[in-house]
């Protein structure tokens, strides 16, 4: 086995697969994917529902089919794969330490690294859920793996906390498998997942969603017997007289995802406290030269298609870096979150990058606007550099906007760039 690779990618979900393909196609000779599972594909393997590929392929594919398309491409390109292998450490000079059962302890060198570890689910501890600690409390993604890959039903009567996409998709999935979903509770006054999932996962199956309502406590000694639900005000304080005991044997949590960056931190990668992912430029390079990041490790996307696209950008950047040990970069300019914008990815833009390629920005709104909005990128004088109309802006759905190469001149003159979303 080789010791030194042009590009090493950590993780083989949609971000990692796309990064590997793009690295190879942009001139990197030796590309290696390190995956801790026994097969490629990451979480797509358990996302058996449809709805993947609509943006990139104009095709409605299930997750495993979407993954297989890229897996076959990876294999066809002669990309090296280390499966069932756990990365333990990465250094800022791109040494990677890993273990697996065939080779034991492995030391590798990479000219460029792409971090593609994805994200993990918020757990009960992270939302400080009170009450007893019986069996029968799972994150929605864990239940998804049980039901869709391993063939176990985690319970019969469910309550789901959180209206995130995985929670709603699991509500439908469990119903199809013969379980009863008593309720979906959402602490926010709005849906946190996609509206289409509310329609086709909850409405279609007659599953009730209650907003501004949460779990007050879990009841049960050995196994969950019920949960106590309660309404909350804007500050999440319980409203008296609104309690309800809902009998159930399982509680699923769909309460948010956090980019998985334990390895990134070891390599000296700086994290944005808002996204919980690395600060990245428009090639998805982190603050550590030669270490790139792609997909949900940067910020949590709501469509896999955008993860794939981010993987392509990061993989191309990594290949360029590997070949020259640096990227010919122009002056950098920050992309700031302006009116009603929580964050913008990428955090900075290389002014010269626009000469060769368009740059896609992705951001989340702070509060929902349920009417036509205009997303704009403005310079220090309020001049519009790029804009896009949308039917609405919702915190649960990423806003996406492209700065086209024809904005090159305007960006050259700008001293600051701010992204805003406003009513039209």
């Amino acid at each position, binding site marked *: 086995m080789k010791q030194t690779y042009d590009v090493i990618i950590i993780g083989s979900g949609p971000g990692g697969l796309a990064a590997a393909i793009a690295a190879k196609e942009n001139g990197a000779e030796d590309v290696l994917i390190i995956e801790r599972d*026994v*097969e490629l594909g990451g979480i797509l*393997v358990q996302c*058996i*529902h*449809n*709805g993947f590929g*609509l*943006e990139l392929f104009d095709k*409605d*594919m*299930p*997750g*495993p*089919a979407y*993954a*297989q398309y890229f897996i076959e491409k990876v294999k066809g390109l002669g990309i090296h794969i280390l499966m069932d292998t756990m990365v333990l450490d990465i250094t800022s000079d791109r040494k990677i330490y890993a273990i697996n059962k065939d080779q034991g302890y492995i030391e590798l060198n990479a000219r460029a690294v792409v971090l593609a570890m994805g994200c993990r689910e918020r757990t009960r501890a992270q939302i400080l859920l009170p009450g007893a600690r019986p069996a029968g409390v799972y994150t929605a993604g864990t239940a998804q793996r049980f*039901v*869709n*890959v*391993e*063939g176990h039903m985690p319970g019969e009567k469910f309550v789901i906390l959180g209206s995130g996409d995985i929670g709603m998709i699991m509500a439908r999935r469990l119903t*199809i*498998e*013969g379980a009863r979903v008593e309720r979906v509770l959402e602490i926010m006054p709005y849906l946190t997942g*996609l*509206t*289409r999932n*509310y*329609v*086709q996962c909850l409405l*279609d199956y007659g599953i009730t969603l209650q907003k501004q309502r949460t779990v007050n406590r879990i009841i049960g000694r050995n196994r969950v017997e019920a949960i106590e639900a309660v309404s909350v005000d804007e500050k999440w304080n319980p409203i008296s007289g609104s309690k309800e005991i809902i009998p159930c044997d399982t509680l699923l949590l769909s309460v948010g995802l956090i980019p998985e960056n334990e390895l990134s931190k070891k390599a000296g990668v700086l994290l944005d406290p808002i996204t919980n992912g690395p600060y990245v430029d428009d090639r998805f390079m982190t603050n550590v030269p030669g270490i790139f990041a792609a997909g949900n490790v940067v910020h949590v996307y*709501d*469509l896999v298609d955008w993860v794939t696209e981010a993987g392509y950008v990061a993989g191309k950047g990594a290949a360029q870096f590997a070949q020259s040990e640096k990227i010919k970069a122009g002056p950098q300019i920050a992309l700031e979150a302006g009116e009603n914008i929580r964050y913008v990815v990428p955090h900075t833009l290389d002014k010269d990058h626009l000469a060769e390629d368009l740059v896609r920005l992705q951001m989340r709104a702070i509060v929902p606007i349920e009417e036509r909005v205009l997303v704009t990128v403005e310079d220090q004088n309020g001049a519009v550099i790029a804009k896009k109309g949308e*039917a609405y802006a919702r915190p649960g*759905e990423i806003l996406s906007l492209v700065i086209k190469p024809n904005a090159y001149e305007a960006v050259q003159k700008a001293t600051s760039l701010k992204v805003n979303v406003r009513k039209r």
Partner: protein
Amino acid sequence: MTEVSEIICVACPKGCPLQVRYEGDKVLEVLGAGCQRGKDYAICELQDPRRMVASTVKVKGGLHPLVPVYTRSAFPKPLIPQLAQALRQVEMPAPVVIDQVVLENALGTGIDIIASRDMPEAS
């Protein structure tokens, strides 16, 4: 008499709110759709609602005990519970390949249920 129904399009992740004006079975107008797919969806939703359905079937001797499957095209909504039940009876021998039919002409709809990935034999 003209009636109006408000539905949310699920043809893509955008989720356009649609207003459908119809008389009996005849759709007169679809408002609010961002594309042609949305208009088609609205008409279908009123006359013959269908959904893509994804589930799993058992596999004997595979890398995993299940293989994910889905409907080759959108499936009549009222028949989804029956389809779920029918799929629970299916067991495939490994290996299974992507797009392989696991249930032909499901419930007489003319729609095949196909595998959404390869499932190799357990090594």
